[in-house]
Structures are given as C-alpha cells and as structure tokens.
C-alpha cells in the first residue's frame, strides 16, 4: 500500500480505522463544515462536478452529473448505495479502503445523502471478505455513537443512517441493478434499463449507487474544494486513483497515484517485473478490460483518456501485469472460465455464449483447437456484445477479442502444434506455480 494521494495517505499508523485516528487526520471536517455553514445541496453537487471526479468502479461516469440526476422534489424515500462488491479479478482496492479507512467512506456517503436528500444508505460489501465487513460494522457503530449517523446529525435537522449489507460473493451483484435486487432479498440479477436507478432503484425509489473509492474521495473534495482535487490529476481526469497492481511484479499491492501518471512510473513503484524479465502484456483496468501489449502500455499514462485511446479501459484500476513467461491462451482460459461461472443466466447470449467461449478456449489450450476456432471466437463474441441486459456479456467478450487480436499468433501456434508457444519450463519459472 503506497500513496501519493488522499485516501490511503497517512495510513501507516496502528489502528488507522478508528474514528479517533480518522478525526486526527482531518476526518469529518467536511461534514462539520457542511452542517455548520448549512451549505446548500446544489453547491455540494457543483463542487463534485468541478472536481472532475469520475466513478471509480469501472465505468468512469462523472459523479457530479450522476448526483444531479436524482429527482429533487420526489416525495418519499430516496436511497443511496455504495458498491463495495468488489469482484472483478485483479481488483482489491475497495477492501483496503474499508479495512484501513472506513470512515472516509462513511463520511462520503453522509455528504452524498445530504446532497441528494437521501435518509438511508446501504454499503453492499462483497461476500468473500469477512473481516472487512466486521470492521465496517464497527466503524458504523463508532459513527452512530458519535452522533455522526442517525437522527439529527451533529445536532442539525439532517438525518441519515447507513447500513452494511454483506453479499454472498456473486460477481454479478457488482452490477448496480443486480446489487439492488440483492439488497431487496431477491436473486442477484440485473434489471433491464431504462428505467435507471435514479428514477426506479432500490424498492422502486430513486437511488444513486457509487463505488467505495468514489465515496472515499468526497470528503477531500468538500474539505479542500473541487479545484484542489482536479488539480491532483489532469483535466477531465481529476484526482488521484488507486491502482491494484498484481501479476509478475516484485511488489504487488495498492498504489494511489495522481491520474495521468505514466504507467512506467507505476510499474517502477511496484518494484518492476519479477526476475528482470520482459513485460509482455497488461490488463489495465480489471479482467474485463481489453488486454494491451506491453509496448503499447509503456507509452500510456494512467488515466481514463490515455488508456481509452490505446484501446482499453481504465476500469476499476486493476493492473494485471504479465511478463514473457505467460501463456496467453492459458491466461484467457482462466478468464473465460470466470465469466462462464459468473454469468447470472438471465439472458440468452451471456448464459449460452460464455460457456461456449470457455469451451473453445479450453480446447485450444488442451491441444484440441481447430483451424477456424479463432474466427468462431470472434463471431461468438460479436453475437454476445451489445445484445445482453447488462455489461457482463461485453466483459466476457472483450478479453477474448483482445487476446485473439493482440496475441493471435500464440493461439494459432497452439492450434497448429497442440502445445504452448511459451515453453513449459519458462512458464514455470515465471509463476513458480503453474506446470504446463
């Protein structure tokens, strides 16, 4: 964990997740300022817009704009939801935020509730992280005790309560409408949109869903101003961002850096490639982002625009680094298996197509590939993409398309020679785990 930013800054001490420690770091000042100065909701949303903060969950939608979609004069309940259902392979940032700095998320959500007129929020925490859930519950209890949550916060007439909801570990529940279904106690399956959650969300009421890291950025924006946050990054890519660097690097972990930092710098922070090998490929934004060849990646800066221009997505900021010992067919097989297992089964192309993709990649990896299999993969992914209810179909297809596009020769070699282009011994030395 390393930070040049705001969320993971100053977390080197002991028990940094405690309320007292958070307050020492300037915590809840933003909230106190809002309450004391009675800052109007519009002004807060304006500040968030000014900051250039974009959704940190993967889609990168401007947060201020999203907040402004919430109907103002809606009679009755409105809800806020935090998406901590971090299930994307390669992503492990939200759990660290909740583990070491839960109060910044709580403060961010209280401010969001204030700005959008919600009296109730839920934090949906991924089902496979237990201690984090417990720690967040402890933080909620501390906040309630201190009068920061509940009725009449800090003596004002603003009330907001926040609850943690522990999921069961399904990847699909990270899709915002599936997350809402899951909170409602139903099977986690995405809803057809429109209507969007801002008009028909949790229990049919207007609802805003943001990522954990997004909420965690809010207190800084209010405390220091939107401009200050924007200045941390670069235009249209305001602020700092957490990157979960994993794979063949010496120091895998979470790194908070200003958006716009060159990839090479991030790689260096993570200790460079293990064993001094060459960089082969990088998935820059979580497993559903298209893979980029190492050379392309070395020219990118870590921000939404640069990565998008290079043909991939910044996504959730999960940087999966693969060196030359990687068999790209094996890597894709593992990814495709993930999407096959995590498809919710609701709509046809994804339910049937993800299994088909996995089986074709699986047979190529196992020496049973056929000459036209690459065309078949491209055709099946084309039939899935853009035809499904949610983005999981696209997420399953993009890795396949990009692996075949950038590393087609490796797949062709597999099909023709019924073995890996990368010799098994090299693969083993790279991973020390895998034996081909």
């Amino acid at each position, binding site marked *: 964990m390393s930070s040049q930013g705001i969320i993971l800054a100053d977390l080197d001490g002991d028990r940094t997740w405690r309320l007292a420690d958070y307050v020492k770091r300037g915590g809840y000042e933003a909230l106190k300022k809002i309450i004391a100065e009675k800052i109007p909701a519009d002004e807060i949303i304006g500040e968030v817009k000014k900051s250039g903060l974009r959704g940190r969950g993967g889609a990168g939608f401007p947060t201020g704009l999203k907040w402004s979609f919430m109907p103002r004069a809606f009679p009755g309940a409105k809800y806020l939801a935090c998406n901590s259902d971090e299930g994307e392979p390669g992503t492990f940032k939200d759990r660290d935020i909740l583990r070491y700095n839960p109060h910044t998320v709580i403060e961010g959500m209280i401010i969001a509730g204030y700005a959008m007129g919600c009296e109730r929020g839920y934090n949906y925490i991924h089902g496979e992280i237990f201690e984090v859930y417990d720690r967040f519950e402890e933080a909620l209890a501390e906040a309630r005790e201190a009068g920061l949550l509940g009725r009449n916060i800090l003596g004002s007439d603003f009330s907001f309560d926040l609850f943690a909801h522990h999921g069961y570990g399904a990847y699909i529940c990270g899709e915002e409408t599936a997350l809402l279904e899951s909170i409602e106690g139903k*099977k986690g399956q995405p809803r*057809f949109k429109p209507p969007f959650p801002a008009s028909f969300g949790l229990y049919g009421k207007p609802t805003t869903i943001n990522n954990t890291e997004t909420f965690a950025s809010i207190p800084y924006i209010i405390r220091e101003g939107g401009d200050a946050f924007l200045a941390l990054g670069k235009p249209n890519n305001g602020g700092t961002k957490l990157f979960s660097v994993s794979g063949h690097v010496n120091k895998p972990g979470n790194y908070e850096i200003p958006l716009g930092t060159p990839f090479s710098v991030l790689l260096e922070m993570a200790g460079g490639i293990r064993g001094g090998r060459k960089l082969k490929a990088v998935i820059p934004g979580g497993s559903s982002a298209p893979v980029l060849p190492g050379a392309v990646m070395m020219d990118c800066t870590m921000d939404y625009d640069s990565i998008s221009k290079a043909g991939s997505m910044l996504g959730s900021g999960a940087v999966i680094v693969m060196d030359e010992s990687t068999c790209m067919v094996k890597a894709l097989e593992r990814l495709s298996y993930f999407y096959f297992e995590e498809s919710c*089964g609701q709509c*046809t192309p994804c339910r049937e197509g993800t299994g088909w993709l996995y089986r074709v990649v699986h047979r190529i990896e196992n020496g049973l590939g056929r000459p036209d299999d690459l065309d078949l993969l491209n055709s099946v992914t084309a039939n899935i993409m*853009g*035809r499904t209810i949610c983005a999981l179909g696209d997420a399953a297809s993009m890795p396949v398309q990009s692996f075949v596009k950038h590393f087609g020769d490796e797949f062709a070699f597999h099909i023709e020679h019924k073995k890996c282009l990368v010799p098994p011994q090299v693969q083993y030395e790279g991973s020390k785990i895998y034996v081909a």
Partner: protein
Amino acid sequence: MLEIEIDGKQLQVSDGSTVMEAAATVGAYVPHFCYHKKLSIAANCRMCLVQVEKAPKPLPACATPVTNGMKVWTHSEQAVKAQKGVMEFLLINHPLDCPVCDQGGECQLQDLSVGYGGAQSRYEEEKRVVGNKNLGPLVSTDMTRCINCTRCVRFTTEIAGLMELGQAFRGEHAEIMPFVEKTVDSELSGNIIDLCPVGALTSKPFRFAARAWEMSRRKSISPHDSLGSNLIVQVKHDVVKRVLPLENEAVNECWLSDKDRFSYEGLNGEDRLKRPMVKQGGAWIETDWQTAMDYVVRGLKGIRADHGPESIGALGSPHSTLEELFLLQSVVRGLGSGNVDFRLRQSDFSADGRMKGAPWLGMSVSEIAGLDRLLIVGSFFRKDHPLVAQRVRQAVKKGLKVSAINPAFDDWQFALQNQLCVSPSEMSAALAKVLKALVEQGSAALSPEFQALVDSVQVDEQALAIARSLGSGRRVAVWMGNYAVQHQDGVALHALASEIARLSGGRFGVLGEAANSVGGYLAGAVPFGAVSGKNASEMLSTPLKAYVLLGIEPEFDLRDAVAARKAFGAAEMVVMLSAFKFEEALGYADVMLPVSPFTETGGAFVNCEGRTQSFHPVVKNTGDSRPAWKVLRVLGEALGLGNFDYESVDAVRAQILGASGSVDPFRLSNDIDIEPLNPAGVSQGLQRVADIPIHFADPLVRRSAPLQATKDSEAPFARISPATLKTLGLNAGDKVVVRSVSGSATVVVSEDEGVAAGCVRLAAAHSSTWALGSLNGEVSVERI
C-alpha cells in the same frame, strides 16, 4: 400520441407503448419468446432485438419504449443478424428432440428456428442436461428443453398470485424449479403449459396422446364455473384429447382454470352411462331407448293419475344447458306440476316470487379492471371463481381495495384491505353493522325495511373500516358469493348486501355457482312464475312420488344428501338423466337415461354477466347416449304434452331468449321486494361451514383422475381455529367424528386460523362427508 416509423410505415401510437406493441399494430412480426402481453417484461430471451435509428446497438422491442420520431427496422440486416445470433445461442444447448417432443408442431422455438436458425450447429461440445421436476399431476417437465424465458415463473407470481416457480442457480446451470419438495398447486397451473414456448412444460394427462396436427380444433364453452370460459376442444378420432383456451378478452382472456382445462379427463371413464337402464325386480338391465322411454312415460302418467301432478318433481343441475333446463321445466309444467328447481344447494327460498329478474353479477367481468372498491360477502372466492379472482388480483395491483365478510378465509393471493371473519349465524348482523356505519357516514337514507335490524346492532371498528373503504370509492361493487347464496339467511344477506351497495353508490352482483346459474332462471327452471310449486328444498323435505333428475349426483350436488336419499328411496319412481352411472344412485333410482356431456351436445350457457354463449357438439355421441334436450323433447311428445316439436336446439333457445339469441337486459335483476328484516338469533353451538372444493363441484370434474390427484382434491379436514380447538380440547391431526342431526362423518382435524371462532369448516360434495346431510347447522365434534 407519438409519431413513429416501423419498417418504413408511419404510425401513431400512444405514450408508453413499447416497440413490440407498436410493431404489432402495423402487422410487423417481431420474433420473441419471453415476451407475453399479459406478463411483465423480462427482456431476457433477446430474440426481439430490432434496429433503432441512432441506437448504437440493437434494442429489445419488448422493453424499448417508443419515443417521438423513432425509426425502427424489425427485419433490417442488423436486426436479423442479431436475431439469428440469439437463435443460435438458444439452440446450442437445446436437445433438438422434436420428433419425440409433445410440443412438436406447436413449438415457438421450432417455428422460429425455421426462419432464424442455421441448418447445422457450430456448437459441437457437450450439451447441457437438466433434471426434470415434479410439478404435480397436471404439468409434465422436460427441463433440458427449457430456454429460461421465465414466462412460467412470471405467471405464477403475477397472474396466479403465488410464486411457485423460480430460477435457481446461475449462468449455464440456471434451472427453473419449484421450491424444494413442492409442486405447482395453483388452480391456474395449466396455463404454464400454454405459456411455455418450448416443450419443457407439457400437459401430463395429454402426454404422448396425439400430435398437434392430427387433432381438429373445435370451439366450446366450459360447463363448470359461472364465468363460461371459452374453450378449444381438440379431438382425434371422435375422442376429446385435450382442452385449450379460446382467447376471449371479455371472458377468460387467454387463460383457463385447471378445472376447465382438465375436466375432459372425466368424460370417458368406466362409469360412463352408455345405454338406457331400467330396474326390474331390483335388478338393473340394459335396454333400448324405446323400452326405457315407455317405462318412464307409463310411470309418470300412472303417478299423475294416482297421486296428482303435484306429486311429480324435477331437479336439474345448474351445469345443464339453457335448453335442457327449459325443456325439463316444460315437461314438469306440461304434466301440471310446478315442482322444478335448479338451485340445488340453496336453502333460503323466501324471495321466490318477489325477484324482479335473474340474479347476476350486475356488471360485466371486463369492468372489474375499473373498480376501486369491492366487498365480497360469503365466498370461497379464489377456488369458486378462479379467473374472476385473477381479474380482481390484477385490479388490486392497480389500486382496487377489497374487503370481505366470510365465516372462513383462504389465502386469495391478493391483499385484502378488510377481512371480517364471523360465524355463519353472525353474518347478517355483520352486514347490518356495515350498513349502519354507512348510514352514519350519511351518504343516503336507509330503506325502512332495514331499520329494525340496523337498530339492533352496534357499529364496531371492523364494520366502520369496511364502510369507510366503500364510502371512499368511486367505482364500487358488492358481490354475493356462492356461500352467501347457499346460506340459511341467504335472502337477508342478499337484501343487506344490496342495500350496502346502494348506500355506497355501487353496483350489486351475485357471482353465481355454476355455468348456468343465471340461465336456469331465464329457462324458468324455478318453482314460481307460470305454475308455481315446491322448491329444491321442499321437494326433499316433503317427499314426492316421482322425481326426474337431470345431471345430478344426489350425494354431492344437493343441499342435503341424507334427506335426498330418504326422499328418493321412498318415491315410486326416480328417473335419472345422466352421463354417468352413479354408483350410489343404483340403490334408489329406477331408470337411468344416458345423456350427453357438454362435448356431445349443443346448447348455451348464460354466464354470471348475462352473456349467452352457445356451443356445438365436438364429438359424436358415446354409445346410445343422446343429448338431454332431445330426450326431454321426445319425453314431452311421448307424454302427449304438445308444443315439443322443436327441430333444433336453436329453436329451443329462440323460444327462451327470442330471436336475438341473447338475454334481454331487463330480465337480469338483483332486486327483490323485501319484507322488513328482523334480527336473527346467534347460534351458540358449533356451526358447520361447508365449502364446495373446486374439484368436487360437479359430476364431470369429480371424475377427472388428474384433477382428483391435485392438492385441491385432498379429502376434507375438519378445519378449526386454534382458539376453538383449545376450547374443544382437540389438536390438529386428531381423528374425530363430526355429528349433525342427520348423521356423522369421520375426518381428521386441522388447525386453520382463517376459520371463524365456534365453527368447523368441513367441505361438502365428498364421499366422506355427505352423510352429515345439510351444508350448515350445528354439529358436534368428538375425538375417537
């Protein structure tokens, strides 16, 4: 209105329409599986993807709302490519076992695969296999064929009102299944067979009985409940193979109750009566029509000569056609008697002669959708009127508030705003309380006949809540259920409910027990009017010398089976016109004449809303059986009664309804000249509440083996509320003897919170309970 263009055609559609609905209006067919006009939108099959201008990707027509100026192409290259892509996905795991699939020939997937599927599959991996589920005796499963469209899931949740199916597991492992160890027990369950677009859910009774293209489709009308669902009867080699709904938005929409759909299984059982039979010297012999008719004519003439015409009476089933009931009463009146009735389970006939017309629903069933307040009095509503209840369920979702006053409640699968549970003897007082509360709200003046009764009661909170509910409505209805009509104070309940409707500015209606509960009045099959006589109750309590019974199984279809058996046993002659050889009746009947069930005869039923629905025979006569209208016509002529020379069933109908063939509205009325109502005493003893379970209600449905295997056909329990169980010192599961003044029944006790205190709910129309006699009155319960 929005202006849009579909496939180059300009059209105007209303706000909020979907592209699918708009396309239908210009005749552009968009292929689909999960979309169904009566169900919520799921958009999960993705087959209806169409191209929309400015949209970057194809959009599902079923879920895309129309916007002004939208341009849609349903069959453009982009659209068809998307549709074909989806079809390929649907087929990769589908077994393609059409040659052995019951759905073959009427399968949406099969049909659409012709247009959108490839000649050969690109998928050569192993296919998915899904284990079959036990959904009960009506629906057969082949779940490997399932395409997960979730129509069945949405049907049980939204239309039938209880989620009995769901999609378990994820992704490729997703399966449609009932809850663990449960079956689908809804009385509307058969509709999921129609809804399933593939062969995953098929009819269990019909399984492998015929191919869809081998059968002819013939229209008919259901002879069971008072709705008169429209049927398609499918026939092969003159045998009814299955029954499907004939879509009629005004009546049954596209649904059927299981009773309507599967009762045909009872048509051709072993006890089907195929030849006339007469009893000679205590032994039954089969004979020909001539001999049997001679026997009947001689017998009736003799009895008339010896004991006078008033010693002859006839009882007709309310499931008989209009023409049959008319000719039955014509024969009786021709003989000079007025003893004819079709209200077999009714006990209060004090309104006879004071009714202004035939009691009916007071509105059309399609008007239910517009109601905002409804009071239902004395009804086992969901099971007695499955599809009317379904309409109410949909209306409740749109804001209809329903209140009910009953001695026993089941779960109706929709929310009741007020639920007033009182014992049978307190029902009129309960209605009087509501009436009093309405008067106190000051909407209109009370008719003086009710004053004494209203003065005798105190308004309580529940009555006030119902009155407030009705008073706040703009389109209000008050309905009498079958239980209220059969109640010992039926006329008082009718008058009170009608007055409640009047004071709340609403309409009053009678739901009606059977397919021809309205028609029986119009046919004159009642002991008042031209020649008056004894009603159904009196004919049993003061025995006659001769009885003619049309379509009646006395132990199950009459109010008091014990009195009936006594009366019939003492009579000189009992003539039964029936489609079935009733085992019990062999003891006391003298002649059994085989008449046609609804599939073999023509005629008409008048349903609860006064709609005349005629039908033709769909198969030939079985054995020597003949349509009852012909038998009665010949009987009338043979008796020398004159005016029986009808050449067709249509001519008989014209005699009843006039040339128009439909009911003159003025002949329908729920008004009665009432006499002042006085408070009735409240019974102190344990009272019986008898329901007529859905699959026990008439002789045909009682013979349908698959329906008799459903949960609804379980042997009756003595259902008692927990508090009353405690006072009686009984526990659920105890075996008890229930005793009435007429006899006793041995049954098992079950705890039922829906039953009023001091009552035992014990179903009638079953072999284990007919010996109790009357449907109501006091009983005792004793553990054995």
